């Protein structure tokens, strides 16, 4: 019988097959490290007197704690500063390559890996961060792990893992204008629930997925964890190879040819069987937005806040009631009537150049709602530089948005970028949990173009809600 993509990558990494219910021992090709989940792992190595097995398969960056303003000054928060300094000392002691704040390759770890060409098809990739699923967009098996596992990988370059089940998420059709990959994944999570992917590796397939750019595929795979899945994958194709070719750590010359030959085998066989299948019609999809406090609590933007009593399951009813209280929303309120205070464009979900371009295209020549503040946080220092080379920074600044330095920023508010209690935010990030973006803050997850339209109107909005660009602004280089 044929094998799925996930099974092929798994099989190629088995160091030792588990016997009698024991897990397989899997080799790990790439270990990404950041400051938050690594200090206790380095300390564990030190206490046990164990070396780092493969520093040449390990790379670190600073992202969660880093400020997005005044990055040339010492970090003000002493605990954040200590954590960053701890990473620097550990990387020095163990010989790990580090891209620190101020380096042109610094940034969110899941933006940095693909940008350097280190993220490649068929690899096993881990990081002490649940959004490691992002890298699955290249046909890699990429998983978030805890700190004990980080230490395990440091010491052995392997992980004992139980085989996962496989789920096909097939999306057929063509997305309408103003609808993006973020809407696909939010709709998938609303459909299967936050636990629907538990125990599975998801494979996204179908014509709508094939038509997506690498950036858009990364957005989808990134949020696989929000459906409870350990990983999400897309089979590599010409779009993947075009993205990778010429990047610093992509194979070169004959190595490239050998790699492509192997990568071309990385697809699910026609006679392979998935353990579960889900279908979504791209033609029917509208911009999607969350109303609650978990990523499964979402609706189309044209719909209203649901009535908790409309849910069949008692736990879902209770969760909806609690969420609406926290979000300060009444059932039946049209989503488009919800006014926001802040718009956040950033995070490992939507902070790549394509995301910034899409938002800039909407706001170019238009005015920001004066009561809304907008933060634009590029995913990496390189993304920031590339955006500036295209003049996108000026578009955001002219609009009245704040143009910041790279990092995780307001996605989780470990640095000073936080919501105030009661503040409401349209955010391109991945989690709308209670207090995620700051204590008492209220989050609506949206796509970059919905974020941009919302910043203009002040209420949750889709690009189709906007009128024509004012004629007076037509001289600023707007293209249709």
């Amino acid at each position, binding site marked *: 019988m044929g094998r799925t993509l996930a099974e092929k990558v798994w099989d190629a990494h088995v*160091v*030792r097959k*588990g016997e009698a219910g024991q*897990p397989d*021992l899997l*080799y790990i*090709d*790439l270990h990404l490290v950041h400051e*938050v*989940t690594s*200090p*206790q792992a380095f300390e564990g190595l030190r206490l046990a007197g*164990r070396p780092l097995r493969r*520093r*040449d*398969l390990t*790379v670190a960056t600073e992202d*969660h704690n880093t400020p997005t303003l005044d990055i040339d000054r010492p970090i003000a*928060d002493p605990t954040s500063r*200590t*954590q960053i300094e*701890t990473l620097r000392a550990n990387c020095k002691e163990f010989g790990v*390559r580090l891209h620190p704040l101020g380096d042109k390759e610094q940034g969110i770890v899941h933006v940095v890996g693909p940008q350097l*060409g*280190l993220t*490649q098809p068929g690899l096993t990739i881990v990081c*002490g*961060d*649940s959004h490691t699923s992002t890298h699955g967009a290249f046909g890699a098996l990429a998983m*978030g*792990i*805890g*700190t*004990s*596992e980080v*230490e*395990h990988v440091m*010491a052995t*370059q392997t992980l*004992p893992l139980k085989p996962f089940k496989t789920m096909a998420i097939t999306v057929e059709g063509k997305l309408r204008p103003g609808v993006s990959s973020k809407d696909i994944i939010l709709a998938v999570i609303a459909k299967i629930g936050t*636990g629907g992917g*538990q*125990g599975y590796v998801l494979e996204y397939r179908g014509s709508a997925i094939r038509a997506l750019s690498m950036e858009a595929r990364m957005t989808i795979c990134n949020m696989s*964890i929000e459906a*409870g899945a*350990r990983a999400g994958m897309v089979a590599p194709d010409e779009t993947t190879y075009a993205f990778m070719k010429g990047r610093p*750590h992509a194979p070169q010359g004959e190595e*490239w040819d050998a790699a492509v030959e*192997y990568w071309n085998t990385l697809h699910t066989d026609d006679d392979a069987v998935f353990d579960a299948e889900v279908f979504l019609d791209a033609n029917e999809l509208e911009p999607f937005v969350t109303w609650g406090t*978990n990523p499964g609590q979402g609706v189309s933007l044209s719909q209203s806040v649901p009535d908790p009593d409309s849910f069949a399951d008692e736990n879902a009813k*209770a*969760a909806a009631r609690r969420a609406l209280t926290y979000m300060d929303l009444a059932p039946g309120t049209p989503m488009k009537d919800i006014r926001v205070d802040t718009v956040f464009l950033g995070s490992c979900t939507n902070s790549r150049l394509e995301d910034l371009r899409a938002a800039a295209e909407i706001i170019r020549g238009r005015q920001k709602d004066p009561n809304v503040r907008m933060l634009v946080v590029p995913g990496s220092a390189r993304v920031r530089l590339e955006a500036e080379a295209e003049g996108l920074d000026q578009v955001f600044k002219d609009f009245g948005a704040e143009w910041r330095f790279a990092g995780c920023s307001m996605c989780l*508010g*470990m640095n000073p970028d936080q919501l105030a209690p009661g503040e409401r935010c349209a955010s391109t990030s991945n*989690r709308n*949990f*209670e*207090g*995620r973006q700051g*204590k008492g803050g209220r989050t609506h997850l949206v796509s970059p173009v919905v974020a941009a339209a919302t910043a203009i109107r002040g209420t949750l909005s889709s690009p189709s809600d906007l009128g024509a660009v004012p004629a007076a602004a037509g001289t600023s280089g707007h293209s249709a």
Partner: protein
Amino acid sequence: MEKFTSHTGIGVPLRQSNVDTDQIIPAVFLKRVTRTGFEDALFSSWRKDESFILNQEPFNRGSVLVAGPDFGTGSSREHAVWALKDYGFRVVLSSRFADIFRGNSGKQGLLAAVVAQDDVELIWKELENHPGTQITVDLESKTVTCGNLVAPFEIDDYTRWRLLEGLDDIGLTLQHEDEIAAYEAKRPSFKPTTLPVRN
């Protein structure tokens, strides 16, 4: 890791689904570089509410948390497990756990036991009607005892064995160092390395 065979302690009913790791420990507490001392961080936002279950006697002395489905979703932060353990919890019961949280628990000797939702509902009622009721969780027989109820729980055999024996994963893996080296010797040369740095 400390061995886990059986544990008896006060049960704490947490009638909520989707308890994500941002609730178990908010991100602000992740800046610490130590592995212990997180007891104050556990459910820190919710604990500011006086009516929260852990602010009530005798639940504040509980060691078996009984939660709704999809416990531990979201972030991979192992700090969530450290915070539960530092507070005094030894066991969490739920009908469904997020994968990474369950894995992290197994590495740290916190028992994440999967109990059918119908049994969770019965345990909640018992704990609410008789606060202070002790729950016994026996890993040998894979059963939970609460009042008159004896319910089975599920846990994968490998994690159960490691918990019963108190085994360290890294030590187990390094017994197979020769096989790791053999695998490394035949990895294709086109696979990337982070060093030397290429620009």
